[in-house]
Protein backbone atom coordinates (compact mmCIF):
# COMPACT_ATOMS: atom_id res chain seq x y z
CA UNK A 1 0.00 0.00 0.00
CA UNK A 2 1.60 3.31 -1.04
CA UNK A 3 1.70 5.91 1.67
CA UNK A 4 -0.78 8.73 1.40
CA UNK A 5 0.35 11.93 -0.24
CA UNK A 6 1.09 15.13 1.63
CA UNK A 7 -1.99 16.67 0.04
CA UNK A 8 -4.23 13.89 1.35
CA UNK A 9 -2.76 14.10 4.82
CA UNK A 10 -3.06 17.89 4.84
CA UNK A 11 -6.72 17.68 3.82
CA UNK A 12 -7.44 15.12 6.58
CA UNK A 13 -5.58 17.19 9.18
CA UNK A 14 -7.71 20.14 8.19
CA UNK A 15 -10.88 18.08 8.69
CA UNK A 16 -9.57 17.05 12.11
CA UNK A 17 -9.01 20.70 12.98
CA UNK A 18 -12.58 21.43 11.89
CA UNK A 19 -13.80 18.56 14.11
CA UNK A 20 -12.00 20.09 17.10
CA UNK A 21 -13.36 23.56 16.39
CA UNK A 22 -16.84 22.09 15.97
CA UNK A 23 -16.53 20.15 19.22
CA UNK A 24 -15.75 23.36 21.09
CA UNK A 25 -18.52 25.11 19.19
CA UNK A 26 -21.12 22.47 20.12
CA UNK A 27 -20.01 22.31 23.74
CA UNK A 28 -19.97 26.08 23.98
CA UNK A 29 -23.55 26.08 22.67
CA UNK A 30 -24.37 23.41 25.26
CA UNK A 31 -22.55 25.32 28.00
CA UNK A 32 -20.51 22.29 29.02
CA UNK A 33 -19.48 18.86 27.92
CA UNK A 34 -16.92 16.18 27.23
CA UNK A 35 -14.11 18.20 25.69
CA UNK A 36 -11.24 15.82 26.50
CA UNK A 37 -12.43 12.57 24.95
CA UNK A 38 -14.03 14.32 21.99
CA UNK A 39 -10.89 16.13 20.94
CA UNK A 40 -8.56 13.18 21.57
CA UNK A 41 -10.59 11.26 18.96
CA UNK A 42 -10.74 14.04 16.36
CA UNK A 43 -7.92 12.88 14.09
CA UNK A 44 -9.14 9.28 14.14
CA UNK A 45 -12.69 10.34 13.29
CA UNK A 46 -11.55 12.64 10.49
CA UNK A 47 -9.51 9.82 8.95
CA UNK A 48 -12.41 7.38 9.29
CA UNK A 49 -15.04 9.64 7.74
CA UNK A 50 -12.90 11.30 5.06
CA UNK A 51 -10.54 8.48 4.16
CA UNK A 52 -11.85 5.04 5.17
CA UNK A 53 -15.59 4.56 5.65
CA UNK A 54 -17.74 3.90 2.59
CA UNK A 55 -20.86 5.98 3.23
CA UNK A 56 -23.63 7.85 1.44
CA UNK A 57 -24.55 10.87 3.58
CA UNK A 58 -27.58 11.51 1.36
CA UNK A 59 -28.77 7.94 2.02
CA UNK A 60 -27.81 7.19 5.64
CA UNK A 61 -29.65 3.84 5.67
CA UNK A 62 -27.91 2.52 2.53
CA UNK A 63 -27.71 -1.22 3.40
CA UNK A 64 -24.16 -1.74 2.14
CA UNK A 65 -22.59 1.20 3.98
CA UNK A 66 -19.71 0.65 6.35
CA UNK A 67 -20.73 0.79 10.01
CA UNK A 68 -19.16 2.99 12.66
CA UNK A 69 -20.16 2.72 16.32
CA UNK A 70 -18.93 5.26 18.84
CA UNK A 71 -18.91 3.03 21.88
CA UNK A 72 -17.43 5.84 23.99
CA UNK A 73 -20.68 7.69 23.44
CA UNK A 74 -19.74 10.63 25.67
CA UNK A 75 -17.58 11.85 22.76
CA UNK A 76 -20.75 12.52 20.78
CA UNK A 77 -19.76 16.13 20.14
CA UNK A 78 -16.97 14.82 17.92
CA UNK A 79 -19.27 12.35 16.19
CA UNK A 80 -21.93 14.91 15.32
CA UNK A 81 -19.17 17.29 14.23
CA UNK A 82 -17.69 14.83 11.78
CA UNK A 83 -21.15 13.73 10.58
CA UNK A 84 -22.06 17.36 9.87
CA UNK A 85 -18.77 17.89 8.05
CA UNK A 86 -19.42 14.75 5.99
CA UNK A 87 -22.81 16.14 4.98
CA UNK A 88 -25.26 14.02 6.99
CA UNK A 89 -27.00 17.15 8.29
CA UNK A 90 -26.45 20.91 8.32
CA UNK A 91 -23.74 22.04 10.67
CA UNK A 92 -26.20 24.49 12.24
CA UNK A 93 -27.37 21.44 14.22
CA UNK A 94 -24.16 21.76 16.23
CA UNK A 95 -25.46 25.01 17.68
CA UNK A 96 -28.36 23.04 19.18
CA UNK A 97 -26.18 20.64 21.16
CA UNK A 98 -28.01 19.61 24.37
CA UNK A 99 -31.09 21.35 23.01
CA UNK A 100 -34.63 20.54 24.05
CA UNK A 101 -36.35 18.13 21.64
CA UNK A 102 -33.31 17.78 19.41
CA UNK A 103 -31.38 14.62 18.54
CA UNK A 104 -28.30 16.49 19.77
CA UNK A 105 -27.96 15.12 23.28
CA UNK A 106 -24.81 14.32 25.19
CA UNK A 107 -24.80 10.80 23.71
CA UNK A 108 -25.43 9.47 20.19
CA UNK A 109 -29.04 8.80 19.22
CA UNK A 110 -29.76 6.18 16.55
CA UNK A 111 -32.67 8.27 15.33
CA UNK A 112 -30.18 10.81 13.93
CA UNK A 113 -29.16 9.91 10.36
CA UNK A 114 -25.57 8.66 10.36
CA UNK A 115 -25.64 7.39 13.94
CA UNK A 116 -25.57 3.58 13.93
CA UNK A 117 -26.37 2.93 17.59
CA UNK A 118 -27.51 4.82 20.65
CA UNK A 119 -24.54 4.58 22.96
CA UNK A 120 -23.42 6.15 26.19
CA UNK A 121 -23.57 3.28 28.63
CA UNK A 122 -20.01 2.01 28.38
CA UNK A 123 -19.04 -1.46 27.23
CA UNK A 124 -21.89 -1.85 24.74
CA UNK A 125 -20.50 -0.86 21.34
CA UNK A 126 -18.18 -3.74 20.64
CA UNK A 127 -20.92 -6.36 21.10
CA UNK A 128 -23.17 -4.37 18.80
CA UNK A 129 -20.32 -4.17 16.32
CA UNK A 130 -19.91 -7.94 16.46
CA UNK A 131 -23.60 -8.25 15.57
CA UNK A 132 -23.25 -5.77 12.70
CA UNK A 133 -20.23 -7.59 11.30
CA UNK A 134 -22.11 -10.89 11.55
CA UNK A 135 -25.10 -9.35 9.81
CA UNK A 136 -22.87 -8.18 6.98
CA UNK A 137 -21.31 -11.61 6.65
CA UNK A 138 -24.63 -13.49 6.74
CA UNK A 139 -26.07 -11.21 4.06
CA UNK A 140 -22.81 -11.21 2.07
CA UNK A 141 -22.88 -7.44 1.92
CA UNK A 142 -19.16 -6.97 2.33
CA UNK A 143 -19.35 -3.88 4.49
CA UNK A 144 -16.84 -3.20 7.22
CA UNK A 145 -17.56 -2.38 10.85
CA UNK A 146 -15.47 -0.09 13.03
CA UNK A 147 -16.04 0.46 16.76
CA UNK A 148 -14.29 3.17 18.74
CA UNK A 149 -13.64 2.35 22.37
CA UNK A 150 -12.48 4.53 25.21
CA UNK A 151 -9.64 3.39 27.42
CA UNK A 152 -11.52 3.75 30.70
CA UNK A 153 -14.39 1.96 29.00
CA UNK A 154 -12.26 -1.18 28.74
CA UNK A 155 -12.74 -1.64 32.47
CA UNK A 156 -16.24 -2.88 31.65
CA UNK A 157 -16.09 -6.67 31.44
CA UNK A 158 -18.58 -6.87 28.60
CA UNK A 159 -15.85 -5.65 26.21
CA UNK A 160 -13.90 -8.79 26.88
CA UNK A 161 -16.91 -11.00 26.19
CA UNK A 162 -17.21 -9.21 22.87
CA UNK A 163 -13.47 -9.48 22.18
CA UNK A 164 -13.59 -13.21 22.81
CA UNK A 165 -16.57 -13.75 20.52
CA UNK A 166 -15.24 -11.58 17.67
CA UNK A 167 -12.11 -13.72 17.52
CA UNK A 168 -14.05 -16.97 17.90
CA UNK A 169 -16.30 -15.93 15.02
CA UNK A 170 -13.27 -14.88 12.92
CA UNK A 171 -14.69 -11.46 12.17
CA UNK A 172 -11.99 -10.01 9.93
CA UNK A 173 -14.37 -7.25 8.83
CA UNK A 174 -14.50 -5.91 12.37
CA UNK A 175 -12.03 -3.31 13.60
CA UNK A 176 -11.88 -1.76 17.04
CA UNK A 177 -9.97 1.43 17.77
CA UNK A 178 -8.98 2.33 21.31
CA UNK A 179 -8.71 6.06 21.87
CA UNK A 180 -5.98 5.58 24.43
CA UNK A 181 -5.78 9.03 26.01
CA UNK A 182 -4.76 7.52 29.38
CA UNK A 183 -7.28 9.52 31.37
CA UNK A 184 -10.80 8.84 32.57
CA UNK A 185 -13.33 10.83 34.56
CA UNK A 186 -11.61 10.76 37.93
CA UNK A 187 -7.96 10.47 36.99
CA UNK A 188 -5.33 8.47 35.16
CA UNK A 189 -6.52 5.10 33.90
CA UNK A 190 -3.44 3.41 35.34
CA UNK A 191 -4.39 4.69 38.80
CA UNK A 192 -8.12 3.99 38.60
CA UNK A 193 -7.84 0.48 37.15
CA UNK A 194 -4.87 -0.16 34.93
CA UNK A 195 -5.16 -1.76 31.48
CA UNK A 196 -1.56 -2.70 30.76
CA UNK A 197 -0.28 -4.76 29.08
CA UNK A 198 -3.13 -3.75 26.80
CA UNK A 199 -1.83 -4.95 23.42
CA UNK A 200 -0.87 -8.31 24.91
CA UNK A 201 -4.35 -8.74 26.35
CA UNK A 202 -6.01 -8.21 22.98
CA UNK A 203 -3.51 -10.48 21.22
CA UNK A 204 -4.21 -13.15 23.81
CA UNK A 205 -7.90 -12.74 23.01
CA UNK A 206 -7.16 -13.52 19.34
CA UNK A 207 -7.01 -10.06 17.80
CA UNK A 208 -4.41 -8.70 15.44
CA UNK A 209 -3.05 -5.55 17.05
CA UNK A 210 -1.24 -2.47 15.81
CA UNK A 211 -0.21 0.51 17.96
CA UNK A 212 0.03 4.00 16.55
CA UNK A 213 0.09 7.69 17.31
CA UNK A 214 -3.56 8.69 17.16
CA UNK A 215 -2.68 12.24 16.17
CA UNK A 216 -0.32 11.35 13.31
CA UNK A 217 -2.44 11.30 10.17
CA UNK A 218 0.18 9.37 8.19
CA UNK A 219 0.20 6.60 10.80
CA UNK A 220 -3.60 6.57 11.13
CA UNK A 221 -4.23 6.31 7.40
CA UNK A 222 -1.49 3.73 6.94
CA UNK A 223 -3.11 1.56 9.60
CA UNK A 224 -6.59 1.96 8.12
CA UNK A 225 -5.24 1.15 4.67
CA UNK A 226 -3.67 -2.04 6.05
CA UNK A 227 -6.95 -3.41 7.46
CA UNK A 228 -7.56 -6.22 8.14
CA UNK A 229 -4.17 -6.73 9.76
CA UNK A 230 -4.50 -10.52 9.47
CA UNK A 231 -6.88 -12.87 7.69
CA UNK A 232 -9.64 -14.43 9.82
CA UNK A 233 -8.97 -12.20 12.81
CA UNK A 234 -10.56 -8.98 14.02
CA UNK A 235 -8.18 -6.02 14.05
CA UNK A 236 -7.39 -3.64 16.89
CA UNK A 237 -5.79 -0.24 16.59
CA UNK A 238 -4.43 1.07 19.86
CA UNK A 239 -4.24 4.79 19.16
CA UNK A 240 -2.12 6.67 21.66
CA UNK A 241 -3.72 10.06 22.07
CA UNK A 242 -3.76 13.12 24.29
CA UNK A 243 -6.94 13.97 26.10
CA UNK A 244 -8.09 17.48 25.21
CA UNK A 245 -5.65 17.59 22.27
CA UNK A 246 -5.18 20.95 20.59
CA UNK A 247 -5.88 23.35 23.44
CA UNK A 248 -3.09 23.67 26.01
CA UNK A 249 -5.17 24.18 29.12
CA UNK A 250 -7.42 21.22 28.31
CA UNK A 251 -4.67 18.76 27.44
CA UNK A 252 -3.82 15.73 29.53
CA UNK A 253 -5.98 16.45 32.54
CA UNK A 254 -9.04 14.70 33.88
CA UNK A 255 -10.45 18.15 34.75
CA UNK A 256 -11.32 18.49 31.07
CA UNK A 257 -12.95 15.06 30.78
CA UNK A 258 -16.09 17.11 31.22
CA UNK A 259 -16.19 20.79 32.02
CA UNK A 260 -18.10 23.99 31.48
CA UNK A 261 -17.38 25.96 28.31
CA UNK A 262 -18.09 29.66 28.71
CA UNK A 263 -17.50 32.49 26.22
CA UNK A 264 -13.98 33.34 27.39
CA UNK A 265 -12.80 29.73 27.42
CA UNK A 266 -14.34 29.17 24.00
CA UNK A 267 -12.54 32.18 22.51
CA UNK A 268 -9.22 31.01 23.95
CA UNK A 269 -9.75 27.52 22.62
CA UNK A 270 -10.50 28.71 19.09
CA UNK A 271 -7.49 31.03 19.20
CA UNK A 272 -5.20 28.16 20.11
CA UNK A 273 -6.67 25.82 17.52
CA UNK A 274 -6.33 28.36 14.72
CA UNK A 275 -8.31 28.76 11.55
CA UNK A 276 -8.91 25.88 9.17
CA UNK A 277 -7.91 26.21 5.54
Amino acid at each position, binding site marked *: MPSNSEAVLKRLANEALRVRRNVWRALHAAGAGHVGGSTSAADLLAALYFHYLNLRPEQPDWPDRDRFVLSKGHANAALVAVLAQAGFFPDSHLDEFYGYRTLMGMHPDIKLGGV*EMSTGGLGHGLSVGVGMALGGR*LQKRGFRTVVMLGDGELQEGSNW*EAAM*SAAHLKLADLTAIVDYNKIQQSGHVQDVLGLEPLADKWRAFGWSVRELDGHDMAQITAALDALPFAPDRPSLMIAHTVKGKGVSFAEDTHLWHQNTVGDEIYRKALDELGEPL
Partner: protein
Amino acid sequence: MSAMPESAVSQAADQTRLAFGLAVGELAERDDSVVAISADSVDLIGLRGLVEKHPERVVEAGIAEQNAMGIASGLATTGMRPYLCGYAPFITARSMEQLRNDVAYANQRVVIGAAASGVSLGVSGGTHHALEDLALMRALPNMTAIVPADAYQAWHAVWATREIDGPVYIRLGGRVAEPPVTARDAAFRVGRADCLKDGDDVAIIACGCMVVEALAAAEALAGQGVAARVLNMHTIKPLDGDAVLAAAAETRGIVSAEEHRVTGGLGGAVAELLARENPTRMRMVGMPDEFAIVGPTDKVREGYGLSKANIVKNCLELLG
Protein backbone atom coordinates in the same frame (compact mmCIF):
# COMPACT_ATOMS: atom_id res chain seq x y z
CA MET B 1 -51.23 -17.27 11.68
CA SER B 2 -49.71 -20.73 11.66
CA ALA B 3 -50.50 -23.57 14.02
CA MET B 4 -47.81 -25.86 15.36
CA PRO B 5 -47.33 -28.70 12.86
CA GLU B 6 -47.69 -32.36 13.81
CA SER B 7 -43.92 -32.92 13.56
CA ALA B 8 -43.31 -30.28 16.22
CA VAL B 9 -46.18 -31.43 18.41
CA SER B 10 -44.55 -34.82 18.80
CA GLN B 11 -41.35 -33.17 20.04
CA ALA B 12 -42.67 -30.30 22.10
CA ALA B 13 -46.36 -30.63 22.92
CA ASP B 14 -45.85 -29.84 26.61
CA GLN B 15 -42.76 -27.63 26.52
CA THR B 16 -43.01 -23.97 25.56
CA ARG B 17 -39.23 -23.63 25.42
CA LEU B 18 -38.89 -26.37 22.80
CA ALA B 19 -41.85 -25.05 20.82
CA PHE B 20 -40.08 -21.69 20.68
CA GLY B 21 -36.88 -23.15 19.22
CA LEU B 22 -38.70 -25.36 16.75
CA ALA B 23 -40.78 -22.41 15.58
CA VAL B 24 -37.62 -20.33 15.08
CA GLY B 25 -36.18 -23.19 13.04
CA GLU B 26 -39.31 -23.29 10.90
CA LEU B 27 -39.23 -19.51 10.42
CA ALA B 28 -35.56 -19.71 9.44
CA GLU B 29 -36.51 -22.11 6.62
CA ARG B 30 -38.85 -19.50 5.19
CA ASP B 31 -37.04 -16.26 5.92
CA ASP B 32 -33.32 -15.79 5.24
CA SER B 33 -33.14 -12.93 7.71
CA VAL B 34 -34.01 -15.13 10.71
CA VAL B 35 -31.03 -15.97 12.89
CA ALA B 36 -30.92 -17.55 16.32
CA ILE B 37 -28.46 -16.52 19.02
CA SER B 38 -27.74 -18.97 21.78
CA ALA B 39 -26.29 -18.16 25.16
CA ASP B 40 -25.17 -21.78 25.59
CA SER B 41 -28.79 -22.83 25.33
CA VAL B 42 -29.13 -24.76 22.05
CA ASP B 43 -30.73 -27.82 23.64
CA LEU B 44 -32.56 -25.92 26.34
CA ILE B 45 -34.51 -24.09 23.68
CA GLY B 46 -34.90 -26.66 20.92
CA LEU B 47 -32.38 -25.27 18.43
CA ARG B 48 -30.39 -28.47 17.84
CA GLY B 49 -32.26 -29.22 14.62
CA LEU B 50 -31.49 -25.78 13.22
CA VAL B 51 -27.84 -26.08 14.24
CA GLU B 52 -27.55 -29.38 12.39
CA LYS B 53 -29.33 -28.20 9.28
CA HIS B 54 -28.16 -24.60 8.98
CA PRO B 55 -25.25 -24.06 11.39
CA GLU B 56 -24.59 -20.58 10.02
CA ARG B 57 -28.05 -19.49 11.21
CA VAL B 58 -27.27 -20.09 14.87
CA VAL B 59 -24.76 -17.79 16.53
CA GLU B 60 -23.36 -19.33 19.68
CA ALA B 61 -22.42 -16.55 22.09
CA GLY B 62 -21.53 -18.82 24.97
CA ILE B 63 -22.21 -18.06 28.60
CA ALA B 64 -22.02 -14.32 28.02
CA GLU B 65 -25.50 -12.81 28.03
CA GLN B 66 -24.39 -9.18 27.86
CA ASN B 67 -22.50 -9.82 24.65
CA ALA B 68 -25.32 -11.99 23.27
CA MET B 69 -27.79 -9.14 23.77
CA GLY B 70 -25.51 -6.60 22.09
CA ILE B 71 -24.89 -8.96 19.18
CA ALA B 72 -28.64 -9.39 18.74
CA SER B 73 -29.06 -5.63 18.56
CA GLY B 74 -26.24 -5.22 16.07
CA LEU B 75 -27.65 -7.98 13.86
CA ALA B 76 -31.07 -6.36 13.94
CA THR B 77 -29.66 -3.02 12.76
CA THR B 78 -28.48 -4.74 9.57
CA GLY B 79 -31.95 -6.07 8.78
CA MET B 80 -31.52 -9.54 10.27
CA ARG B 81 -34.27 -10.92 12.56
CA PRO B 82 -32.47 -12.22 15.65
CA TYR B 83 -34.11 -14.64 18.09
CA LEU B 84 -32.03 -14.60 21.25
CA CYS B 85 -32.32 -17.66 23.45
CA GLY B 86 -31.28 -18.00 27.04
CA TYR B 87 -32.25 -18.69 30.62
CA ALA B 88 -34.87 -16.23 31.86
CA PRO B 89 -33.00 -15.32 35.07
CA PHE B 90 -29.79 -14.53 33.16
CA ILE B 91 -30.97 -13.16 29.82
CA THR B 92 -32.89 -10.49 31.71
CA ALA B 93 -31.06 -9.49 34.87
CA ARG B 94 -27.50 -10.19 33.70
CA SER B 95 -27.86 -8.33 30.43
CA MET B 96 -30.45 -5.80 31.55
CA GLU B 97 -28.45 -2.74 30.53
CA GLN B 98 -27.85 -4.13 27.05
CA LEU B 99 -31.52 -5.03 26.87
CA ARG B 100 -32.55 -1.54 27.92
CA ASN B 101 -30.06 0.48 25.83
CA ASP B 102 -29.16 -1.56 22.77
CA VAL B 103 -32.51 -3.29 22.28
CA ALA B 104 -35.36 -1.29 23.84
CA TYR B 105 -33.96 2.27 23.68
CA ALA B 106 -32.58 1.70 20.17
CA ASN B 107 -35.91 -0.02 19.40
CA GLN B 108 -34.46 -2.98 17.55
CA ARG B 109 -36.45 -5.97 16.38
CA VAL B 110 -34.89 -8.48 18.74
CA VAL B 111 -36.98 -11.38 20.03
CA ILE B 112 -35.90 -12.83 23.37
CA GLY B 113 -36.87 -16.40 24.20
CA ALA B 114 -36.48 -16.68 27.97
CA ALA B 115 -36.63 -20.30 29.08
CA ALA B 116 -36.77 -21.70 32.60
CA SER B 117 -38.78 -18.79 33.96
CA GLY B 118 -40.50 -18.55 37.32
CA VAL B 119 -39.54 -21.32 39.72
CA SER B 120 -39.30 -23.93 36.98
CA LEU B 121 -35.72 -24.47 38.14
CA GLY B 122 -37.06 -24.92 41.65
CA VAL B 123 -34.23 -26.91 43.19
CA SER B 124 -31.64 -24.53 41.74
CA GLY B 125 -32.64 -21.83 44.19
CA GLY B 126 -32.95 -18.08 44.03
CA THR B 127 -30.00 -17.54 41.69
CA HIS B 128 -31.88 -19.50 39.02
CA HIS B 129 -35.45 -18.38 39.66
CA ALA B 130 -36.86 -15.64 37.42
CA LEU B 131 -39.59 -13.91 39.41
CA GLU B 132 -38.98 -10.30 38.43
CA ASP B 133 -38.43 -10.62 34.68
CA LEU B 134 -41.91 -9.43 33.74
CA ALA B 135 -41.54 -6.42 36.03
CA LEU B 136 -38.31 -5.53 34.23
CA MET B 137 -39.91 -5.95 30.79
CA ARG B 138 -43.03 -4.03 31.75
CA ALA B 139 -40.89 -1.06 32.74
CA LEU B 140 -39.26 -0.84 29.30
CA PRO B 141 -40.78 1.38 26.62
CA ASN B 142 -41.10 -0.24 23.17
CA MET B 143 -41.14 -3.74 24.69
CA THR B 144 -43.81 -6.35 24.00
CA ALA B 145 -44.00 -9.07 26.68
CA ILE B 146 -45.71 -12.39 26.01
CA VAL B 147 -46.28 -15.35 28.32
CA PRO B 148 -47.58 -18.29 26.27
CA ALA B 149 -49.90 -20.54 28.24
CA ASP B 150 -48.75 -23.65 26.42
CA ALA B 151 -46.58 -24.91 23.58
CA TYR B 152 -49.21 -24.11 20.97
CA GLN B 153 -49.23 -20.50 22.04
CA ALA B 154 -45.43 -20.39 22.14
CA TRP B 155 -45.48 -21.41 18.49
CA HIS B 156 -48.09 -18.79 17.65
CA ALA B 157 -46.13 -16.17 19.58
CA VAL B 158 -42.97 -16.78 17.56
CA TRP B 159 -45.00 -16.49 14.37
CA ALA B 160 -46.63 -13.29 15.60
CA THR B 161 -43.23 -11.62 16.14
CA ARG B 162 -42.91 -11.21 12.39
CA GLU B 163 -45.49 -8.42 12.59
CA ILE B 164 -44.08 -6.65 15.64
CA ASP B 165 -41.87 -3.66 14.85
CA GLY B 166 -39.83 -3.62 18.03
CA PRO B 167 -38.36 -5.85 20.72
CA VAL B 168 -40.34 -8.80 22.07
CA TYR B 169 -39.86 -10.82 25.25
CA ILE B 170 -41.35 -14.32 25.26
CA ARG B 171 -41.42 -15.98 28.66
CA LEU B 172 -40.99 -19.75 28.47
CA GLY B 173 -41.12 -22.65 30.88
CA GLY B 174 -38.50 -25.07 32.08
CA ARG B 175 -38.36 -28.83 32.01
CA VAL B 176 -41.57 -29.36 33.99
CA ALA B 177 -44.53 -30.36 31.84
CA GLU B 178 -46.85 -27.63 30.60
CA PRO B 179 -50.06 -29.36 29.55
CA PRO B 180 -51.92 -27.77 26.62
CA VAL B 181 -54.78 -25.49 27.64
CA THR B 182 -55.57 -23.96 24.25
CA ALA B 183 -56.55 -25.54 20.96
CA ARG B 184 -53.66 -25.95 18.56
CA ASP B 185 -55.37 -23.87 15.88
CA ALA B 186 -56.99 -21.34 18.23
CA ALA B 187 -56.57 -17.73 17.20
CA PHE B 188 -53.69 -15.92 18.86
CA ARG B 189 -53.53 -12.16 18.78
CA VAL B 190 -50.80 -10.22 20.55
CA GLY B 191 -52.37 -7.87 23.08
CA ARG B 192 -55.74 -9.64 23.03
CA ALA B 193 -56.60 -11.93 25.96
CA ASP B 194 -58.26 -15.28 25.34
CA CYS B 195 -61.52 -15.72 27.21
CA LEU B 196 -61.28 -19.43 27.96
CA LYS B 197 -64.42 -19.54 30.08
CA ASP B 198 -67.20 -17.05 30.54
CA GLY B 199 -68.73 -16.12 33.89
CA ASP B 200 -70.09 -13.09 35.70
CA ASP B 201 -69.43 -13.69 39.39
CA VAL B 202 -65.67 -13.36 39.42
CA ALA B 203 -62.90 -13.06 36.84
CA ILE B 204 -59.61 -14.93 37.05
CA ILE B 205 -56.91 -13.29 34.97
CA ALA B 206 -53.99 -15.66 34.61
CA CYS B 207 -50.89 -16.17 32.52
CA GLY B 208 -48.43 -18.94 31.75
CA CYS B 209 -48.55 -22.04 33.92
CA MET B 210 -51.30 -20.53 36.07
CA VAL B 211 -53.85 -20.69 33.26
CA VAL B 212 -54.35 -24.43 33.76
CA GLU B 213 -54.81 -23.81 37.50
CA ALA B 214 -57.29 -21.03 36.78
CA LEU B 215 -59.37 -23.32 34.58
CA ALA B 216 -59.37 -26.01 37.27
CA ALA B 217 -60.34 -23.42 39.86
CA ALA B 218 -63.22 -22.21 37.69
CA GLU B 219 -64.47 -25.77 37.42
CA ALA B 220 -64.31 -26.22 41.19
CA LEU B 221 -66.10 -22.89 41.71
CA ALA B 222 -68.82 -23.91 39.28
CA GLY B 223 -69.52 -26.87 41.58
CA GLN B 224 -70.22 -24.32 44.32
CA GLY B 225 -72.49 -22.25 42.11
CA VAL B 226 -69.91 -19.57 41.34
CA ALA B 227 -69.48 -18.62 37.69
CA ALA B 228 -65.87 -17.62 37.12
CA ARG B 229 -64.60 -16.02 33.95
CA VAL B 230 -61.11 -17.14 32.96
CA LEU B 231 -58.92 -14.84 30.91
CA ASN B 232 -55.62 -16.11 29.55
CA MET B 233 -53.67 -12.86 29.54
CA HIS B 234 -50.85 -14.13 27.35
CA THR B 235 -49.67 -10.61 26.54
CA ILE B 236 -48.57 -8.67 29.60
CA LYS B 237 -47.48 -5.63 27.59
CA PRO B 238 -49.41 -4.19 25.92
CA LEU B 239 -52.10 -5.31 28.34
CA ASP B 240 -55.56 -6.00 26.97
CA GLY B 241 -57.21 -3.17 28.87
CA ASP B 242 -60.58 -3.74 27.21
CA ALA B 243 -60.74 -7.32 28.50
CA VAL B 244 -59.72 -6.25 32.01
CA LEU B 245 -62.22 -3.38 32.16
CA ALA B 246 -65.00 -5.59 30.79
CA ALA B 247 -64.22 -8.18 33.47
CA ALA B 248 -64.30 -5.46 36.12
CA ALA B 249 -67.63 -4.14 34.86
CA GLU B 250 -69.30 -7.50 34.34
CA THR B 251 -68.17 -9.42 37.45
CA ARG B 252 -67.91 -8.67 41.17
CA GLY B 253 -64.13 -8.80 41.40
CA ILE B 254 -60.86 -9.94 39.89
CA VAL B 255 -58.24 -12.48 40.95
CA SER B 256 -54.92 -12.40 39.14
CA ALA B 257 -52.69 -15.46 39.01
CA GLU B 258 -49.07 -15.64 37.89
CA GLU B 259 -45.80 -17.40 38.57
CA HIS B 260 -44.04 -14.10 39.27
CA ARG B 261 -43.82 -11.70 42.18
CA VAL B 262 -47.09 -9.87 42.55
CA THR B 263 -45.15 -6.60 42.45
CA GLY B 264 -44.68 -5.49 38.88
CA GLY B 265 -46.12 -8.49 37.09
CA LEU B 266 -49.54 -9.35 35.72
CA GLY B 267 -51.37 -8.54 38.95
CA GLY B 268 -49.60 -5.20 39.16
CA ALA B 269 -50.46 -4.38 35.55
CA VAL B 270 -54.13 -5.19 36.10
CA ALA B 271 -54.24 -3.26 39.38
CA GLU B 272 -52.60 -0.18 37.87
CA LEU B 273 -55.15 -0.09 35.07
CA LEU B 274 -58.11 -0.62 37.40
CA ALA B 275 -56.89 2.02 39.84
CA ARG B 276 -56.92 4.55 37.02
CA GLU B 277 -60.04 3.50 35.15
CA ASN B 278 -62.38 1.64 37.47
CA PRO B 279 -61.24 0.81 41.03
CA THR B 280 -62.24 -2.79 41.52
CA ARG B 281 -61.90 -5.32 44.35
CA MET B 282 -58.99 -7.57 43.61
CA ARG B 283 -56.84 -10.40 44.96
CA MET B 284 -53.42 -11.37 43.65
CA VAL B 285 -52.15 -14.92 43.51
CA GLY B 286 -48.41 -14.96 42.90
CA MET B 287 -45.06 -14.94 44.60
CA PRO B 288 -44.71 -12.73 47.68
CA ASP B 289 -42.01 -10.11 48.17
CA GLU B 290 -39.31 -12.62 49.05
CA PHE B 291 -36.85 -14.96 47.37
CA ALA B 292 -38.46 -18.33 46.85
CA ILE B 293 -37.44 -21.34 48.89
CA VAL B 294 -35.57 -24.22 47.27
CA GLY B 295 -37.42 -27.35 46.25
CA PRO B 296 -39.01 -29.32 43.46
CA THR B 297 -41.03 -26.98 41.26
CA ASP B 298 -44.45 -28.49 41.98
CA LYS B 299 -43.87 -28.29 45.74
CA VAL B 300 -42.52 -24.74 45.59
CA ARG B 301 -45.51 -23.61 43.54
CA GLU B 302 -47.90 -25.35 45.90
CA GLY B 303 -46.10 -23.89 48.91
CA TYR B 304 -46.62 -20.35 47.68
CA GLY B 305 -50.23 -20.93 46.75
CA LEU B 306 -49.75 -21.04 43.00
CA SER B 307 -52.53 -23.57 42.84
CA LYS B 308 -56.12 -24.23 41.95
CA ALA B 309 -57.01 -24.42 45.65
CA ASN B 310 -55.55 -21.01 46.45
CA ILE B 311 -57.24 -19.38 43.45
CA VAL B 312 -60.56 -20.83 44.61
CA LYS B 313 -59.91 -19.56 48.14
CA ASN B 314 -59.12 -16.05 46.88
CA CYS B 315 -62.19 -15.98 44.66
CA LEU B 316 -64.46 -17.00 47.54
CA GLU B 317 -62.87 -14.47 49.90
CA LEU B 318 -63.34 -11.77 47.34
CA LEU B 319 -67.01 -12.61 46.87
CA GLY B 320 -67.37 -12.66 50.64
